[in-house]
């Protein structure tokens, strides 16, 4: 679970949000739900972390927001990616992949060495 101070490395929550929003305009509540579903309940973002992150991304113009109506007819604030957001997501995903592979290599080799 991602707590207020976030157990994930700096910037990871931003990346997860951008990826979720990339699938199409979506409101905050749906972002939290999708993160939880896709990660099989591993990633749970409380509102106290999610909304400040969304507003930060909006202020950095990686996201933009508009009011729209949900399927159930309620008004909600929908976020979507800007072109800067798309670029940021691509760069961020690539560097995350590189890092996680590198970490995996190191952890794997340490395991082998211990044997």
């Amino acid at each position, binding site marked *: 679970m991602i707590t*207020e101070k976030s157990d994930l490395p700096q910037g990871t929550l931003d990346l997860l949000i951008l990826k979720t929003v990339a699938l199409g305009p979506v*409101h*905050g*509540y749906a972002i*939290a739900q999708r993160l939880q579903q896709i990660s099989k309940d591993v990633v749970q973002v*409380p*509102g*106290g972390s999610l*909304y*400040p992150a*969304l*507003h*930060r991304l*909006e*202020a950095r113009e990686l996201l933009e927001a508009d*009011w729209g109506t949900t399927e159930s007819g*309620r*008004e*909600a*604030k929908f976020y979507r990616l800007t072109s800067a957001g798309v670029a940021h997501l691509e760069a961020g995903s690539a560097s995350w992949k590189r890092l996680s592979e590198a970490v995996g290599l190191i952890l794997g080799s340490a395991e082998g060495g211990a044997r």
Partner: protein
Amino acid sequence: MNWWPFPRRRDEHEADLDRELRFHIEERVADLVRTGLGEAEARRRVRHEFGGIEQVKDDCRDAHPARNFADLQQDLGYAARMMLRDPAFAVVIVALLAMGIGASTSVFSIVDAVLLKASPYPSAQTLVRVEETSTSRKLPGIPVRHFQRWADRSDVFEAIAPYIRDTVTLTGDGEPEHVVALRSIGLFPVLGTTARLGRTLGPVDDQESATRATVLSDRLWRRRYHANPNIVGRTIIISGEPYVVAGVMPPEFEFHYPETDLWTPLRLTATSPWIQVAARLRRGVSIPQAQSALEVVAYQIRKEQYKDYAGLRIEVKPWRELLDESTSRLSFL
């Protein structure tokens, strides 16, 4: 109906934020209710998940520094328009603010000068004043004969400065003039202050054979000598005796008698008038320790001269306390 006198944009941001968070909470509550939870329990749980809603709002606002700056600009613009709309009112308000700020600044200046900068000497905590008190009468100072009994206590004091206040006559360079002189031995080393021009008085000047030297106050230097930068080295006549000007003190320097215009060496003899004493405690010696060292001397004096000095005490006081006495009359502020 927009009675709130601030620009609308901030209201909109606030309303948006409120709506957005409320939507999240309502959706979550509805989902929990759908799983079979009672509504009250669902709300309680969502509140717990969410943390403090005001805190979350604050964090969201902080995410928009540019927006906050824009708000400030709008507020300033609004303020300017309102002031132009009713200039008389604006002038009154500005005047009131000016008076308020002015009053507090002047009070602070006084407090700053009197209390906060009250100790202009380095390491003020080791600077002390030695006094004699007696139950039989009030003592205006310390007799030289008493002082000489402990003047060599270098185990207690790092430096000792006896001094007297004297009124002298200045002649030459214009009309004769009475000014206050402070005659002392070793005062400047005890205080640790330096001159703004030339030098202060030191051990050299305290020797019997030395040429008489004097240090001028900034005030006297400006008034009588027209701030002459070449005053150092000149000879002036103090009560008929020639003195070489060694230096000029900075304007903020004052010691014990603020009206002092001259400092000269003091030649102590057994018949000198009663003296005042300032001293610097040796490192590691406390005031009570110094006090008890002098009590031995006081005890001897009480025994030998019991007629004149019954109940004599020699007291060591922090210099700070003396300053407080002289400033307490300002306490009506």
